[in-house]
C-alpha cells in the first residue's frame, strides 16, 4: 500500500521549466497571449503618449504607435520558440499592425522629418 497517493488531477511538471506553466495557461485560456500582447502595446502607447503630452504640451501619436508596435513585436517573437504559446494569426496581426504603424508614421511627417 502506497504511503502517499497523488491527487487525481493533472498537475504541471514543475521540473520541466517555467514555460510549461505559460503553455498550460495559453491552452486553457486562448485569449491569454493576445491579451498579453495588447497589454504591452497599450502600456507603451498610452504611457509614452501621456508622458510626452504632459512634458511638451503635444504628443506624436504615430511615433508612439510605431514604438509600441515594434516593442510588442520583439515580445511576440520569442513566444514563437515554444509550441502552444502563440498562433500564426496572432503573429501575423502583430506584424501587420507594425507595418501599418510605420506607414502611418511615414505619411504623418511634414518635410525634413524622419
Amino acid at each position, binding site marked *: 500500500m502506497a504511503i502517499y497517493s497523488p491527487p487525481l488531477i493533472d498537475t504541471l511538471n514543475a521540473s520541466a521549466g517555467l514555460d510549461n506553466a505559460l503553455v498550460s495557461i495559453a491552452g486553457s485560456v486562448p485569449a491569454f497571449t493576445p491579451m498579453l500582447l495588447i497589454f504591452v502595446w497599450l502600456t507603451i502607447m498610452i504611457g509614452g503618449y501621456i508622458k510626452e503630452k504632459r512634458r511638451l504640451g503635444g504628443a506624436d501619436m504615430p511615433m508612439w504607435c510605431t514604438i509600441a508596435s515594434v516593442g510588442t513585436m520583439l515580445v511576440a517573437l520569442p513566444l514563437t520558440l515554444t509550441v502552444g504559446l502563440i498562433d500564426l494569426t496572432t503573429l501575423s*496581426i502583430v*506584424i501587420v499592425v507594425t507595418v501599418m504603424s510605420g506607414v502611418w508614421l511615414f505619411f504623418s511627417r511634414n518635410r525634413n522629418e524622419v
Partner: protein
Amino acid sequence: MGQIQLIGSFFMIAIFAIAIISYTSNFADENDVAIDIADDIRVTDSILESEIDSVRLQTNSSGQAFSDSTIESGDETSTTGGVFKALSGTFTSVGKILTMGKNVIFGDEQGISGPGIALTALGTFMATLIILYTWKTWAGKSPD
C-alpha cells in the same frame, strides 16, 4: 511636399515594411521556431524576395537614368513626371503590402463584405492623398 520627400517617403515605407517582415522571417529561420510567419501563404505571396529584387532593380535603373540624363541650355527641367515613373515599383510594393495587411486582418473575401470596408476606406483615402500629392509636386500647386 517636394519630389525628394515624396519619393523618399514611399521608398522608406517600402523598405520599412520589407525589413520588418524579413526580420521576423529570418528570426524564424535561424532559431528553428515552432510558429513561422513564412508559413502564412498571404505573407509569402510575392512580398519578400521578389519585392526586394523589384525595389533594388528599380533603384538601379532610376539611378542609371538619372546619371545618363542631360539638361540642355534653356530646357524646362520639370515638364514631365518621369521621376515618378522611375520608382513606380515602390508604389507597387506599398500596394501589395497594404493588401496583404487587409487580407491578414479581415480575410480575403472579394468585395467589401465584412469589416474589411474599414481598411478599404483607409486605403482609398491614402490613394487619394497620393494622387493629390503627386499632382501638387508635379504641377507646383497646392491641392487644398
